[in-house]
């Protein structure tokens, strides 16, 4: 019971942060929102008995993609026009 309530809350947080990452005009805030989405998605994957996918999501989604995006923002502009 508790775990299913927690599962619904985590899914709602995933949808919310995914929409926020599209909504923000400040690209750095958008990237941070995307990182939060990846992190919560990692918890959900672990909850669904898929630790392999959870490790891959934490390594690639939450760490590598974010740092590549941050470096790309350093190369271009921070704000969307």
């Amino acid at each position, binding site marked *: 019971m508790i775990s299913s309530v927690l599962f619904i809350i985590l899914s709602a947080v995933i949808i919310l942060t995914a929409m926020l990452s599209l909504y923000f005009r400040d690209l750095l805030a958008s990237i941070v929102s995307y990182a939060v989405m990846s992190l919560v998605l990692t918890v959900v994957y672990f909850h669904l*008995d898929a630790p*392999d996918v959870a*490790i891959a999501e934490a*390594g690639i989604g939450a*760490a590598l993609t974010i*740092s590549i995006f941050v470096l790309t923002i*350093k190369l271009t502009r921070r704000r969307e026009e």
Partner: protein
Amino acid sequence: MKLASFLSLVLITGFLFVAINKLHPVGAPLGNPDVLKDRSSAATDIINVNTMDDYYLRNSQTETGSNNVVSSIVFDYRGFDTLGEATVLFLVVTSISMLLSLLYKREDVDDYEFRKPNEFPGDVSRIISYGSYLLYPLIITFGVYLVIHGHLSPGGGFQGGAVMASGTALLLVSALITRHVHRTRRIFSFFESLGLTIFISMGFAGIGTTFLYNFLANGSSTLFGRAIPFGPNPGFLNSGGVLPVLSFAIGVEVFFGLSIILVTLFHVARHRKDME
């Protein structure tokens, strides 16, 4: 246009909700639920097996000697897919570093000095510098653990390599990276090619039966050939046949390939900043 996007949203959401009803419970095999209960009969008993995942759950431990069924599928039963993914990653790294290295000169980035955390540069706070200095060995250790135990516990070459490459990203973000790393870029690309070469040569080593055949499994126990019993057990490090070797090769390739992308991007960013 707005109507079309609204309609497609409704359609996709409807399809997803229909698909939810068709899912089977998490963790349960799709076909015969008794396939894991009967552990007495031999491994080649395929008659009771209805679907592919039943077959994997039943036979992967005795056929490949690997406790991690996912890893045995990725590196053994579907090893050719993994070779394709590794080749895609190799091509991506090659093209990205080729394109981006046009944007800076090698002489310009050779001047960067190594920075200890107490000589913190202006644009990075001391907390980030010290934190990444402390976290880096832990991240590398965890990545190496994931690669080495790929055939026993969750993880494997891709995951471990990505975790280790995130350690490189941490060093880059905290501006601790140096000309040392730039000088070792040739070594990075050498090791990346070495990983892919090990993978392909392990594939050709089993060509007597098929390409990527697991010829070391259930053989001599010095060469990862130790047999493991069916059912839940902690497993042994020297089991799994060619799986640990392939996992190591993929881990080396992913770590050094992603590190090359990150280092190249960082040098372009640094060069642009110096130009301003």
